[in-house]
């Protein structure tokens, strides 16, 4: 056990300085920690284990994993830095936090890339052992930031983590390389101590994970314990302080953490069950959409068929084929892959088959920034097809919301015999948040009714339900209902190919009206926070939810007349939306794109909605939205 080497000139680490606290000394309302290191340093694991420990402690939390496009970029480079941020607290936490209070930097590159985001007088924990000349050079530092005034504004905790770790695991006979791999657990131990989280869940996890290599499990646990013990010793010596974060007041229930990727997968399985259909999932791997494929591939006991197709076109076509044959066809991709599906989506529109399409958006155009987030595929979802080919579009606001909207997508697709697009994004897909498990038994079923042989009399495939305008669904294998469908225009009255001009007009209109009619079957638009009319509405969609929500709450506390309206149904729009928006003097639409929803709203309602755009591949910060509100509404009222 070594003695804390708190860097010179630093008094006791004092996080409270700029952190909201709730009175009691050492108790904070919320804290933002960012773990940053080389791709090989295991930062994603460290972050997600800290998240588990924190969740079990009853804090509310939100996370933001931010990793490089490279599988394993060369050690020490700035582009190889991987980071995981967690915001946790006793009050409602909706974003991963604007600026970290604590930055754990495992090497110079991690410091270089992340220091700029740290809040003033925040805490930096660095592994001095990694600040070698070679690493400094790789990170592009001319002089050692630990030695110049780079860190002057911050509180620094300089520890030779590498050495401390090696010492802590020396009894387990690991190679130097293996031993050093435990560095992240040592660090995690220290952080668990500092924020008063339990080690036991992590220990259990390590034991399961390394069940086949017990010496590795033991070494990691020893490192974890050593980091924890280090904190205790340092506290005794007065060098470090420990913080407690109270439990958040959350609705009663059983909770777990969930990422958007998981929630989509489970929502689809639930949706298929509610519809009474077999789930067919056709996909082609692409970042950041692949997790949905991975989750579903492991759910074979639910009869889920996962089909890794040769490309995105085959994936969507196979899904349409499966729907044709009576399954629930689903396909999933990210922007560039969805671009390839446009032609086939037109066929699903034309043949009026149910289909769910999930787009986990990433930064574009083209390959863009595959591991960064963006909302720039809304136009593509709404308009990216030849011909008049309207498709309902939904967008999930949070990881947990993905579950509900996946079910909603299945419901609309099967009830209206139409493809449905569900938009999420790289941020939602990878971020974890606490999720109160839904009561699955209370979900309303919407069983599909295939046309039966008994209905053969007068049957034709495009006969419609008078109310929904959905066509009937007769599946191959049913005697007496043999029919042929395709992408050529069909007669309204027989379903046969028809080149008749008036018929094409009628069919185009009925396809449009069917989709527009869904507006009567979705909830009216509500206001998330604030009044139903007023000076300013901030209208958002998708993963900007948390940032807008927090900003509007803060602004309202500051006295601003501002409301937050968040859209989950982007097409058709809720039928009261126009009226709702007309109750506001100003409408601002923040989007992680150059302005897409804003134009839809302007075109639909002729309101002078204005865009606020962030296209940096990073989520909005609360402060960025707050600044906009303040600027719009002038000094606090």
């Amino acid at each position, binding site marked *: 056990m070594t003695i804390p080497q708190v860097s010179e000139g630093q008094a006791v680490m004092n996080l409270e300085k700029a952190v909201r606290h709730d009175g009691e000394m050492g108790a904070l309302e919320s804290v933002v920690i960012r773990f940053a290191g080389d791709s090989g340093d295991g930062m994603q694991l460290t972050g997600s284990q800290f998240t588990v420990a924190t969740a079990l402690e009853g804090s509310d939390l939100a996370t933001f994993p931010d990793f490089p496009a490279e599988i394993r970029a060369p050690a020490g480079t700035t582009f190889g830095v991987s980071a995981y941020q967690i915001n946790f607290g006793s009050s409602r936490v909706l974003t991963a936090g604007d600026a970290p209070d604590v930055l754990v930097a495992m090497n110079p590159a991690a410091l270089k890339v992340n220091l700029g985001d740290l809040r003033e007088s925040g805490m930096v924990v660095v592994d001095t052992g990694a600040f070698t000349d070679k690493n400094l050079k790789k990170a592009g530092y001319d002089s050692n930031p630990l030695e110049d005034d780079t860190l002057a504004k911050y509180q620094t905790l300089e520890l030779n983590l590498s050495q401390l770790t090696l010492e802590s695991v020396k009894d387990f006979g690991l190679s130097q390389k293996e031993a050093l791999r435990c560095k992240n657990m040592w660090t995690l131990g220290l952080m668990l101590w500092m924020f008063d989280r339990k080690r036991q869940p992590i220990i259990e996890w390590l034991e399961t994970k390394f069940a086949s290599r017990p010496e590795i499990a033991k070494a990691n646990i020893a490192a974890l314990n050593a980091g924890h013990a280090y904190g205790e010793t340092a506290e005794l010596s007065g060098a470090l302080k420990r913080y407690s974060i109270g439990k958040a007041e959350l609705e009663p229930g059983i909770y*777990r953490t969930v990422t958007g990727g998981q929630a989509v997968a489970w929502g689809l399985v639930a949706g298929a069950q509610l519809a009474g259909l077999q789930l067919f999932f056709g996909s082609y791997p692409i970042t950041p959409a692949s997790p949905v494929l991975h989750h579903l591939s492991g759910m074979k*006991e639910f009869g889920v068929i996962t089909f890794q197709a040769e490309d995105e076109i*085959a994936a969507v076509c196979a899904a349409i084929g499966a729907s044709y044959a*009576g399954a629930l066809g689903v396909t999933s991709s990210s922007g560039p892959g969805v671009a390839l599906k446009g032609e086939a989506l037109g066929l699903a529109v034309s043949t009026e088959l149910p289909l769910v399409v999930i787009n986990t958006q990433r930064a574009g155009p083209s390959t863009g920034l595959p591991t960064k987030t963006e909302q720039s595929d809304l136009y593509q979802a709404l308009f990216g097809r030849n011909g008049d080919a309207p498709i309902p579009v939904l967008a999930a606001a949070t990881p947990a919301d993905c579950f509900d909207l996946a079910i909603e997508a299945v419901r609309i697709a099967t009830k209206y015999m139409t493809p449905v697009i569900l938009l999420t994004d790289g941020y939602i897909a990878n971020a974890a948040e606490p999720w109160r498990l839904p009561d699955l038994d209370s979900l309303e079923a919407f069983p599909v009714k295939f046309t039966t042989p008994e209905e053969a009399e007068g049957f034709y495939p495009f006969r419609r339900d008078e109310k929904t305008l959905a066509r009937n669904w007769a599946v*191959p294998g049913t005697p007496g209902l043999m029919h*042929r469908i395709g992408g050529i225009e069909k007669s309204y009255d027989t379903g046969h190919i028809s080149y008749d001009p008036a018929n094409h007009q009628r069919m185009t209109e009925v396809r449009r009206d069917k989709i527009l009619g869904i507006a009567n079957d979705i909830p009216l638009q509500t206001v998330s926070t604030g009044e139903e009319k007023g000076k300013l509405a901030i209208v958002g969609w998708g993963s900007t939810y948390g940032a807008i929500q927090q900003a509007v709450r803060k602004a309202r506390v500051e006295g601003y007349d501002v409301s937050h309206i968040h859209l989950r149904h982007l097409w058709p729009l809720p039928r009261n939306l126009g009226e709702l928006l007309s109750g506001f003097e100003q409408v601002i639409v923040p989007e992680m794109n150059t302005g897409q929803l804003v134009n839809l709203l302007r075109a639909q309602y002729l309101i002078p909605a204005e865009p606020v755009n962030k296209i940096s591949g990073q989520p909005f910060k609360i402060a960025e939205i707050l600044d906009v509100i303040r600027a719009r509404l002038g000094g606090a009222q």
Partner: protein
Amino acid sequence: MNKPVTKLSPKDFATDQEVRWCPGCGDYAILKAVQKTLADIEARPENTVFVSGIGCSSRFPYYMATYGFHTIHGRAPAFATGIKLANPNLDVWLVTGDGDGLSIGGNHLLHVLRRNVDLQVLLFNNEIYGLTKGQYSPTSHIGTRSPSTPYGSVDAPVSPCAFALGAGARFIARGIDTGQKQLPGILARAHAHKGASFVEIFQNCIVYNDGVFNDFTEKAAAADAQLHVEHGKPMIFGKDGNKGLRLKQDRFEIEVVTIGENGVTEDDILVHDETNAALAHLLFTLPHPAFPVVLGVIYCNPAPASYESAVHAQIDAVKAERRTADLKAVLKKGRTWEVR
């Protein structure tokens, strides 16, 4: 519902839809052969699905009184895969053209063949794009003049069967539109094969590529220009039944010989082995007219399992092992905590 109630005739597989091919198009003959095949194999219309892409050939499903899906250009194999995976009990036939299947759709054809989905692929090869009015296709011979190649095409054609073999197909056969005697038999064997079956059918496009196969399809030339192979039988052809293929000494090559000349006897003739892939490659690519055009079931080498059966077997195995499929339990797996 899988057992025929009454025996159906070819006519029972015809729809009332007006057939929209040009008068004299080879597609009519193929339609007839397929309808006959379905009657022969006692197919049930309600369990049969015809899937196609886009092209003259791809209009096929409209004329079959079964289920049918006329999809988009080149993608029929992907649709068919989805259909078969969703309901392995369906009998899936895929109709495509040389453009649909080998130009825009080459990749999907490759993958449906290598995955070995249990369905029949019928590729109508007329060496031209019929529906879009006669542009050259990936099977057109070099020098083909067409609206897009007024000075003649310069790219080498692909051999559909050699392509299928390279893709890993395990059943490959070849027939001629007008070969009403052979075609139903070939199609029935394709149907019997468990896994993806690939059948290339030479089809005359009377409007844009009339007579392109005449050198081996015309009555007068046929006997000398066609070799109909059968597994286990010597590869003999010719109007006098005295020509054959013989292995060259010490070379991995073959030659045409005449039985009764230069001491050649029937015993010298290579016996067709439909499980031999290298031989199949050779037979697919024999240069014509030096060699005959080989027809019939040229390659058949079934795999232990077809794709959709393996997929469902895996699902069934997991189901059997897990016994329950409880979403609630899945959600609760891992770390949960309770807020009161």
